[in-house]
C-alpha cells in the first residue's frame, strides 16, 4: 500500500508540473527549456519555510508566489527574444538557477537540503493534497482554454504577428501564461520537496527541464488530458523498467525519439487520426 501511495503521489506531482508547462508551451506556444528551475524555486522556498516551522499548506502560497514572480521576469524576456532564441534563453535560466544554488551556503550549496519535515497528515494526506492541486490546476487550465484568455494564447501560439495586428495584447497574454505556468510549477516543486524530503541542485537540472517538455510534447501540445496522461505514464515509466535497470535510460531515450519520429503530434494526434480512420 505504501508503495502505491508513493507512486501515485509522484504521478500527481508530475502531472501538475507538466500541466503548468502546458500553459506556457502548449497554450501560448512559448518554448521553455528551463521549466525545472521554477520547480526548483518552489521546492527551495517550500523547504526553507517548513524547516522554519511553517505548515506545508501555508508554504504552498509563497512557493507559488516566488516562482511566479521570477516567471514574470522571464516572461518579460520572452517579449524580447523569440522562438529558438527564447528556448535557449530559458535553458540559460535553468543553468543560472542551478549554478546559483550550488554556490549558496544558506541554501545548502552542493549538498542540498535534507531533513525536510514530513507532511503533518502523513503520506496519504500528501497524496490527497497533491491530487487536489493537480485536479484544481487541470480544471483551471481547462477553463482557461475555453476563456477569452485561452483564445488569446491560442492566437499567439498560432501566429504572434497576426495576433498583434488584430489588436490582441500579446505582451499581456504572454506574461499571464508565464506567471500562471511558473506558479503552478512552484506548487509542484514544494510538494515534491516534501514528497522525497531531500532536495539538491542536481534535482532540478537540465535533464528535468527536458523531461517535462518531452511529457508535454509526447502528450500532444495543448491538450490537457493527453498531457496529463503522458506525464502520469512517463513519471513512473523508469520504475516499471526497473527490471532492465541498465537499459532503462536507453529505452526511455529511444521511446521519446520514436514517438516524435512516428507520431509527431503526440498521443493526442495519434488518437485523433485513429478516430478519423474508424469513421
Amino acid at each position, binding site marked *: 500500500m505504501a508503495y502505491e501511495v508513493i507512486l501515485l503521489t509522484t504521478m500527481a506531482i508530475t502531472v501538475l508540473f507538466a500541466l503548468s508547462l502546458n500553459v506556457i508551451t502548449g497554450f501560448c506556444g512559448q*518554448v521553455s527549456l528551463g521549466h525545472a528551475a521554477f520547480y526548483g524555486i518552489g521546492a527551495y522556498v517550500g523547504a526553507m519555510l517548513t524547516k522554519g516551522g511553517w505548515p506545508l499548506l501555508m508554504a504552498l502560497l509563497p512557493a507559488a508566489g516566488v516562482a511566479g514572480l521570477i516567471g514574470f521576469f522571464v516572461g518579460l*524576456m520572452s517579449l*524580447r*527574444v*523569440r*522562438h*529558438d*532564441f527564447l*528556448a*535557449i*534563453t530559458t*535553458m*540559460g*535560466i535553468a*543553468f*543560472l538557477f*542551478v*549554478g*546559483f544554488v*550550488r*554556490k549558496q551556503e544558506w541554501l545548502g550549496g552542493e549538498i542540498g537540503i535534507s531533513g525536510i519535515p514530513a507532511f503533518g497528515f502523513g503520506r496519504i494526506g500528501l497524496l490527497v493534497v497533491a491530487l487536489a492541486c493537480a485536479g484544481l490546476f487541470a480544471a483551471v487550465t481547462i477553463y482557461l482554454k475555453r476563456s477569452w484568455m485561452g483564445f488569446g494564447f491560442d492566437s499567439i501560439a498560432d501566429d504572434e504577428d497576426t495576433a498583434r495586428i488584430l489588436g490582441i495584447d500579446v505582451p499581456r497574454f504572454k506574461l499571464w501564461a508565464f506567471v500562471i505556468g511558473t506558479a503552478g510549477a512552484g506548487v509542484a516543486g514544494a510538494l515534491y520537496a516534501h514528497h522525497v524530503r531531500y532536495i539538491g541542485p542536481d534535482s532540478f537540472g*537540465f535533464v528535468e527541464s*527536458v523531461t517535462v*517538455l*518531452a511529457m508535454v*510534447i*509526447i502528450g500532444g*501540445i495543448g491538450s490537457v488530458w493527453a498531457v496529463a496522461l503522458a506525464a502520469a505514464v512517463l513519471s513512473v515509466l523508469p520504475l516499471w523498467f526497473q527490471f532492465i535497470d*541498465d*537499459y532503462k*535510460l*536507453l529505452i*526511455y*531515450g*529511444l*521511446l*521519446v*525519439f*520514436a514517438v*516524435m*519520429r512516428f507520431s*509527431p503530434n503526440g498521443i493526442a494526434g495519434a488518437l485523433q487520426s485513429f478516430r478519423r480512420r474508424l469513421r
Partner: protein
Amino acid sequence: MLALDLLLQGVVQGAIYALIALGLTLIYGLLRILHVAHAALFTLGGYIGVIVTNETGSLPLALIVAMVSVGLLGIVIYRLAYKPLLDQSPLVALIASIGLFIAFEEVFRLVFGSYGLSFENPPLRTQVNLGGGLLISHSKLLVIGMAIIMLSILAWLSTRTRTGIAWKATVTDSQIASSFGINIERVRYLNFFIGSALAAAAGVMVALLTNLVEPTMGAVASYKALAIIVLGGLGSVRGTLVAAIAIGIVESFGTVYVGHILDRDALAFAFLVIALMIRPQGLFKAG
C-alpha cells in the same frame, strides 16, 4: 601574468567550443534544426580517437578515422532521423534529437563502460615556453592550430569551390537553388558530414587535453554549443566563432573573479542572457 594565462586558457576553451558549435551552425543554417545529438557525435569522436591511438600508436591516423567515421554516422542520422521530420514544427525535431542524445549516451556507457577511457601514452604533454614565463602545452597549441586549419579549410570550401557555392545557395533559398539544378539532398549530406567530422575532431582534442573520455562528456558540449550558436546569431559562421571565443574567455576569467557566486556553466549562461537582452537577434545577423 595571471591575466595572460587566463586569456590563453579562454582561447583554448573557445577554440574547442568553436569546433563543436560550427557543425551545429552549419546544420541549423541549412535545416533550422537544433541538433542536440550533435554532442553525442563529439563524444563518439573522442572515444574513437583514444581507442585508435591506443591500438596503432598514431594520433593523426586516429584523428582521420574519427572524423571520417563520425562524419558518415552524421549522414545516417540525418537520413533516418531528421529527413522525415523536416516538414514538422522544429520543436518535434528538437525533442527527437534530445531523445536520440539520451539513447546515444546510454549506448556509450554500455559499450565503453561508465568509467571512461584514457590514452596509454598521453601524447603531446610537453610544455613550450611562449616567452615571459608563459607556458603552454603542445596539446593546447595543437587545439588552437586545429581550429585555425579547420576553419580556413571551411572558409576556402564555402567561397572558392562549386560545392561551397551550391551550399550557400541552398542555405539562402533551397527552392530556387534546386530549380537551378543543385542537388539539395547532396548538399545536406555534405553538410552533416562536415559538421559531424568537426565535432569528432573537437572530441579528439578534448580527449587530448583532459586525457579522459567518458559517456557524459557530451552533456556540457550539447547545451553550451547551443548557447554559442544562438549568441552568434543562429546560422552565422562568423558570429559563432566570435561567440565561442567570447564564452571561453568569460568562463576562464569569471571562474576566478566571481566563481564564489556562480559556477562555470551559470557564468556562460548569465553572459548569454545579458547579451541576448541587449541584442535579441544575437551578435551577428545570420548569413
